[in-house]
């Protein structure tokens, strides 16, 4: 006997609502059998197919679940999830608060740091030619160390442009601080002034408000001013075409106005002058114009090159170095250390190039990113811990839902939904924190990052997305954990289980390991700072300040000095080529030691007689330079102890020495005790000190007496008398000293804030866990008290477990932090010792906070009268 076609039957089964299926199948089969008798098998099958397809077509757009009365409506279900979520959250305000607060703090830290990292990474990225621009960094090798510097001679840029057809544009570039700019006898602000060649605005994407990019800098004596200066200081006139006077010496014509520079570039200037202008300055000293602009002797300028796209930079590096070296008249061998074509984009994060000031350390970007991630991680762990710890509370609900037909995926969805609700609350709170902390954070960092929600809409969406993702990640473990309960188990058993305790312990240990690690880091950074500030620097920086010596003052310096020294509260006045902490001058010397001739480059301090007096240097051998010995001014030299050691001078006093610049041979007359003339990152290197009034430019003054501000007024008065139009910008040595260690002190401050937050969030979690435990053990505590346990016993019982966890955390974090901190300290030549007490202190802080949290909660639990808890039994 033939049967209806199977495939058609299957199609019906797939496409029809379940409760309709039986009837349809039956009817069709009956019809099939009738047809079979009347019309034959072929026609019967055809009819069956026709009906099957007709039904499929008619029912195709009807959802078969929709008509199944046993399936819940997903939208109603979703409403129910949200309702339950809000009920659960509002019923447990404490836990909700801990979760929301913790996540919000973590997210806010992430937001802040992301903004900072984004800013740091954006340096120089706005230049259209960012991938084609390189800076030529001369490299040298000294005692195995590679030295790099920004400065190149002025002849290099035109030379390379001429010799290499790969170069599209090139420019020399340098910045001057505190220039004297005057217009209509009015002094303009002493913002940085840059010098650059005609191609500058073609290479770099600084937009012009007025003027033509390709021609603004192509003539001598052309200057451009920034938009803010153009608007504020020209009495509403269009500044283009106006004449400003530079250094009371040269007239410059304004050829254009550029938009104020953004913060995320290493360049910083409000005036930019065409490079050939400096020829006029040098001509005054008797140089020819050609010498001034194309010499290979005065290494004072950076050289930027823009290449044609897709060049082999390594090959160019080699051929350019060779050409440069040969041009300098030196020999070039294959395999010699080449100069470096530094990509523009790498300038911001490259350390150790002399002459670069506004650079960052990439490691700090990493450190802060890690810190943000840590705090967020701790907050996520809180979320997981509290959700799973309290799982048993919701076990009934899970069981009930499963009995009523919920499948695991429904429940996962529900709990993830709750996590999302918590995350959303946290995101809103995080934005609140973010807004409050932003000014403070950037104040500490010393950067001014402009931020508007409109401009950064995508970024804000990204942050919200990241927050939701965090919620999902933190919520996924509890979601899968909770939804895997067996309804039979949870509905049958009356005892409240403890959930997955081991997993929670692991997370708690991790949280506190991170927190302890961060505290150790903070303490270490502070200790190193303290060490640097309190190490004997070898000089005395209290009550000393210094300032740039303008031209007119230099001409009348001895008069100025004389006048001030007559003042009772001014102890000493000196002029030199740099002050400790900011001295970078290498000179070549020839020495004779035991009949042996040595020729070497040595750090050099050029000064007048009173420098040792101002900085209270100490002499270990010989005598100071003094006007009493007439020959000292050209032939007297001082060296430091390290120079004696390094150069193996057996009998330093009297050793013949000759500066490369001077003609006559001099001799060493004294040995100075080592002092830290460079920041503590560097070891003290050999130093030569000599007199030469032509090479100095920085005045340093030691003041005494109580009324410093009055004394300062006197000095300013004298200064203005001689150089009335110049600004009097001075720096106190100790301020400058703080500036020197700015990176470290910023890291210190931020680390302490962030580690405080980390331990705060971790303690929040602990608080949640302990109070939950106290609630669970309510009856146990009651029974124990009835049986005679004291409050201390119970507090001990409650804290014991957590204290064990803390000890484990301590054991984990000590070796890790030891390793990391030592890595960090490597950068300092003089480093503090991170002794046992640092770890002890960090551990103690953590224990104290943790014990405070636990103790308070368990004390509360332990002091409850047993009759209240046991009444129901």
């Amino acid at each position, binding site marked *: 006997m033939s049967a*209806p076609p199977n495939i058609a039957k299957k199609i019906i089964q797939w496409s029809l609502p379940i409760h*309709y299926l*039986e*009837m*349809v*199948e*039956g*009817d*069709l*089969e*009956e*019809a099939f*059998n*009738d047809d079979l008798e009347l019309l034959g098998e072929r026609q019967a099958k055809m*009819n069956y197919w*026709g*009906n*099957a*397809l*007709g*039904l499929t077509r*008619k*029912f195709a757009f009807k959802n078969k679940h929709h008509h199944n009365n046993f399936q819940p409506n997903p939208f109603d279900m979703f409403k129910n999830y949200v309702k339950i979520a809000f009920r659960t959250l509002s019923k447990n305000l404490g836990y909700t608060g801990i979760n929301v607060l913790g996540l919000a703090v973590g997210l806010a830290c992430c937001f802040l740091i992301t903004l900072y990292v984004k800013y740091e990474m954006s340096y120089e990225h706005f230049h259209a030619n960012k991938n084609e621009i390189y800076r030529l960094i001369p490299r040298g090798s000294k005692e195995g160390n590679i030295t790099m510097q920004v400065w190149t001679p002025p002849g290099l840029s035109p030379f390379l442009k001429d010799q290499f057809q790969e170069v599209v544009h090139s420019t020399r570039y340098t910045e001057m601080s505190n220039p004297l700019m005057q217009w209509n006898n009015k002094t303009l602000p002493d913002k940085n002034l840059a010098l650059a060649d005609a191609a500058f605005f073609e290479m770099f994407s600084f937009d012009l408000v007025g003027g033509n990019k390709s021609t603004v800098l192509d003539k001598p004596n052309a200057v451009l001013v920034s938009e803010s200066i153009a608007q504020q200081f020209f009495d509403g006139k269009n500044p283009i075409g106006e004449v400003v006077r530079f250094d009371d010496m040269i007239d410059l014509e304004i050829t254009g106005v550029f938009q104020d520079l953004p913060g995320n570039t290493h360049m910083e200037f409000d005036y930019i002058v065409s490079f050939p202008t400096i020829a006029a300055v040098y001509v005054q000293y008797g140089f020819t114009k050609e010498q001034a602009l194309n010499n290979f002797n005065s290494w004072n300028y950076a050289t930027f090159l823009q290449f044609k796209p897709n060049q082999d930079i390594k090959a160019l590096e080699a051929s350019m170095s060779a050409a440069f070296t040969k041009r300098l008249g030196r020999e070039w061998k294959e395999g010699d250390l080449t100069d470096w074509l530094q990509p523009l984009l790498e300038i911001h994060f490259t350390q150790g190039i002399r002459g670069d000031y506004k650079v960052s350390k990439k490691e700090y970007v990493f450190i802060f990113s890690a810190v943000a991630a840590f705090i967020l991680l701790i907050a996520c762990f809180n979320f997981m811990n509290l959700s799973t710890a309290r799982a048993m509370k919701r076990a009934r609900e899970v069981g009930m839902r499963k009995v009523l037909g919920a499948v695991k995926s429904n429940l996962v969805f529900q709990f993830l939904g709750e996590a999302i609700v918590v995350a959303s609350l946290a995101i809103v709170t995080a934005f609140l924190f973010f807004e409050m902390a932003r000014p403070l954070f950037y104040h500490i960092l010393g950067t001014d990052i402009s931020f508007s929600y409109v401009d950064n809409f995508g970024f804000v969406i990204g942050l919200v997305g990241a927050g939701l993702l965090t919620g999902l990640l933190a919520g996924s473990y509890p979601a899968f954990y909770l939804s895997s309960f067996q309804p039979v188990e949870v509905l049958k058993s009356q005892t409240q289980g403890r959930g997955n305790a081991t997993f929670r312990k692991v997370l708690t240990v991790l949280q506190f390991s991170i927190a302890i690690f961060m505290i150790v880091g903070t303490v270490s950074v502070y200790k190193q700072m303290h060490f640097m500030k309190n190490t004997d620097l070898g000089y005395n920086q209290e009550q000393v300040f210094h300032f740039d010596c303008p031209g007119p003052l230099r001409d009348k310096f001895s008069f100025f000095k004389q006048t001030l020294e007559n003042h009772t509260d001014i102890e000493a006045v000196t002029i030199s080529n740099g002050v400790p902490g900011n001295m970078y001058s290498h000179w070549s010397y020839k020495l004779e030691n035991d009949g042996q001739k040595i020729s070497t480059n040595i750090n050099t301090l050029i000064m007048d007689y009173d420098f040792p007096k101002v900085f209270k240097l100490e002499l270990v051998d010989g005598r100071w330079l003094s006007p009493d010995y007439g020959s000292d001014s050209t032939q007297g030299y001082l060296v430091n102890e390290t120079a004696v050691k390094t150069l193996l001078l057996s009998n330093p006093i009297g050793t013949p020495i000759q500066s490369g610049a001077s003609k006559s041979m001099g001799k060493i007359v004294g040995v100075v005790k080592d002092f830290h003339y460079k920041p503590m990152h560097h070891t003290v290197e050999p130093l030569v000190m000599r007199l030469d009034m032509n090479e100095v430019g920085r005045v340093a003054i030691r003041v005494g007496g109580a009324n410093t501000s009055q004394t300062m007024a006197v000095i300013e008065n004298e200064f203005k008398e001689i150089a009335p139009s110049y600004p009097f910008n001075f720096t106190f040595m100790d301020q400058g000293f703080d500036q020197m260690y700015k990176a470290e002190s910023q890291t210190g401050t931020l680390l302490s804030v962030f580690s405080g937050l980390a331990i705060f969030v971790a303690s929040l979690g602990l608080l949640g866990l302990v109070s939950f435990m106290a609630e669970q053990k309510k009856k146990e505590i009651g029974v124990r008290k009835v049986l005679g346990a004291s409050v201390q016993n119970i507090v001990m019982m409650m804290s014991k477990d957590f204290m064990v966890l803390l000890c484990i955390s301590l054991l984990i974090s000590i070796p890790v932090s030891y390793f990391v901190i030592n890595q960090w300290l490597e950068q300092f030549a003089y480093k503090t010792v991170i002794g046992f007490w640092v770890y002890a202190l960090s551990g103690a802080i953590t224990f104290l906070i943790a014990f405070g949290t636990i103790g308070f909660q368990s004390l509360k639990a332990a002091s409850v009268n047993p009759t209240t808890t046991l009444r129901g039994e």
Partner: protein
Amino acid sequence: MKRERIGELEELVLLVVVYLEEEAYGNAIQEALIREADRNIKLSAIHSTLYRLEEKGMLTACFGDATQKRGGKRKKIFSITPAGSKALRTVKEIRNQLWLKIDSLNLQL
């Protein structure tokens, strides 16, 4: 409750269900329609109509006996609900009134 309208096939099916009484299941309805209304109508069309009427609340159903011929599947016996009767009456009334109007005007058809 919103007023449900019924189409011509639905009207016929409802009438047939009333007329067939205890025997009102898919195949019988089809047969009756072919016989009485001279309509060559497919079983699938009957089924979707029955489904639609059940959705509209005009038909209700219970399961009848299963036979070998049906592959062991039960019959689904339909019967009319008050809503169904009301819909049928409404249709009839409208038609009657229209016919009366046409007749009273002595219009030629």
